[in-house]
């Protein structure tokens, strides 16, 4: 388990090298209204066989991060700096052709809405076979087709040989997402990025898909990045959690650390504002005041300060100085916040720990 390399107190990598390592990634889009700083200095890493959950609201930069790793941004329109090491190769600065060879083979992605992510005009089996064939140019058509049917069977689609000849619109929502997963895994990638893979699905189907991803991860031993706004999903599937706000990482740690002993006021706010199936249902939720910031005009200092209950507890640093990730409490638990250790411990014990949202 590793921490962002750029963080001052990050523990060093021990046993295995992570498959994906992102260092100080910045992604900016110049627009007519100004420069959108979609990702602003984010670092993290994921090992094979592990799942990193990236949590954040809309505009937090979580989806831009994933598309950048895949090299799916138009390099003419996006300004990208930093390092993205996929199996040791830096994707930033690669040509389109070089990233293309990695896409679908070494790293694959599944998207939020499987109906719009699958091409409506082509049969499901053909779309999966195409993904196989592009990275196996010597494979025959029949081999690619057979591989597609195999994959459909492995993701739990009944009668895969027959269903391979169906069109996406003939599948149910859950089956479509299974087909997307089959397509993503057809070349046995080492890194799988799942961008809100269950948000468009019903809750019982979501449970099936999350289980499936977990089973497949055990089988394929790939590194998974699970991008979601749903803290429940993260709690269930992630090994490590990265919380993003305004294009920056604000908290990082193991799922136990972030979900059970969160240390950043934004994470506190998220947990307190999520309705839960447990705890006092008559108590009011504690929302975070205000709205997520504009990425063109980020607040100065800590981007979260206009919504933070504790801004200003440490002089005016929150308003002037961008906080860096640093270790708190335990090894590997990183937080970008100006609160002093004593204050944070106190607020956590008094305000946060007793409330319903935080896991006990």
């Amino acid at each position: 388990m590793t921490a962002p390399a750029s963080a001052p107190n990050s523990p060093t990598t021990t046993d295995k090298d992570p498959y994906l390592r992102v260092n100080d990634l910045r992604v900016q889009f110049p627009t007519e209204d100004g420069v959108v700083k979609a990702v602003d200095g984010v670092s993290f890493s994921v090992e094979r066989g592990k799942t990193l959950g990236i949590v954040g609201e809309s505009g937090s930069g979580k989806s831009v991060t994933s598309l950048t790793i895949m090299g799916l941004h138009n390099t003419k329109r996006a300004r990208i700096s930093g390092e993205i090491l996929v199996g040791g190769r830096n994707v930033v600065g690669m040509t389109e052709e070089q990233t293309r060879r990695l896409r679908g083979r070494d790293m694959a992605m599944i998207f939020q809405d499987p109906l719009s992510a699958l091409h409506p005009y082509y049969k499901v089996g053909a779309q999966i076979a195409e993904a196989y064939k592009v990275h196996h140019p010597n494979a025959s058509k029949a081999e690619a087709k057979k591989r597609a049917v195999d994959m459909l069977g492995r993701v739990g689609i009944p009668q895969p040989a027959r269903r391979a000849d169906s069109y996406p619109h003939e599948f149910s929502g859950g089956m479509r997402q299974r087909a997307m997963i089959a397509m993503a895994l057809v070349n046995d990638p080492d890194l799988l990025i799942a961008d809100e893979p269950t948000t468009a699905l019903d809750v019982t189907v979501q449970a099936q898909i999350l289980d499936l991803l977990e089973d497949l991860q055990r089988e394929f031993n790939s590194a998974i990045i699970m991008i979601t706004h749903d803290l429940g999903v993260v709690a269930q599937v992630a090994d490590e959690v990265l919380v993003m706000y305004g294009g920056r990482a604000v908290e990082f740690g193991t799922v136990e650390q972030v979900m059970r002993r969160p240390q950043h006021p934004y994470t506190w706010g998220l947990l307190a504002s999520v309705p839960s199936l447990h705890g006092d249902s008559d108590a009011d939720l504690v929302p975070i005041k205000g709205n997520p910031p504009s990425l063109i005009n980020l607040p100065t200092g800590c981007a979260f300060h206009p919504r933070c209950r504790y801004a200003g507890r440490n002089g005016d640093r929150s308003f002037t100085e961008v906080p860096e990730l640093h270790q708190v409490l335990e090894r590997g638990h990183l937080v970008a916040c100006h609160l002093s250790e004593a204050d944070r411990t106190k607020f956590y014990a008094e305000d946060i720990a007793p409330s319903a949202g935080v896991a006990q």
Partner: protein
Amino acid sequence: MVRFITRRVLVGVATIIAISIIVFGLFFAVPSSPAKVMCGKNCDPASIAAVETRLGLREPIVEQYTSFMKGVFVGRTYAPGTAFERQCDAPCLGYSFRNDEPVTAILKRTVPVTISIVVGAAILWLLIGVSLGMISALRRGTLFDKIAIGISLTGASMQVFFFGLILLYGLVYATGWLDFPSYTPFTENPLKWAQGLILPWVTLGFLNSAIYARLSRAQMLETLSEDYVRTARAKGLPLGRVYTKHALRAAITPIVTIAGLDIGASLGGTFITETIFGLRGLGKETVEAVNFLNLPIVVATVLLAAVFIVVANLIVDLLYAVIDPRVRLS
């Protein structure tokens, strides 16, 4: 599939019958009598009556309509039992009020002209317009795109009579590079056929290219932002394959629809083009017939135009089902 076609053909036939009734009724509602128009200024009631008998205009309107329809399918006999009796074989569309020429003969002469103009121009505008639009979309924001947008905006805001006259002046009158357009049947001399039609093709083709370029560009841009195009890239497909196999096929679908209907409607007559270039096509014939209250020709051309549109619709629907599997023909 077969059932779909049957149903659509039946609906089409019903549409055409409805149109024929409306056209027939409308023209008989016109106050001035075609017989009067035909027999000229100094006309006595007796010769009017004679004309009316000969053309079968004395019968009640419903009977006139049924004998007209009978004529189309099995042929009919005009003014039976009188001195004017004559046989008109199926498909009988009647005789021109103006010079007694059979309407079918007029159509045989004019329809090929219009078809030649439209087909040639359509090939031009589909090839040029659609590829220009697609390339523009793929190179959005580049100089190529900006020039293409500029040209197509100019083209889309121009009119046939304006652009056609400019071409005529520049290429025929001022320089003499081209002959004045004329129509030679394709079967007679394909080269002359093409030479004589170049100007109308370029005129119609350019103006419609402009519209189709804008349409294709918009469609392609929309398609490029679709999730499934992103998926295709995420699979690692080369950009060429992403564009042709995944984006183009989806972007082209709505263009097929519009092109089909455009071509169908144009076949009903391209009056302005025909007039400017002095070609006797269906459009020119129809407008003249309307001016002269030449009922048989008007009814025939309107019905023919309706047939073209109905057929174009059917073809578009079939093509649609071939392109998009979500469209089921039922």
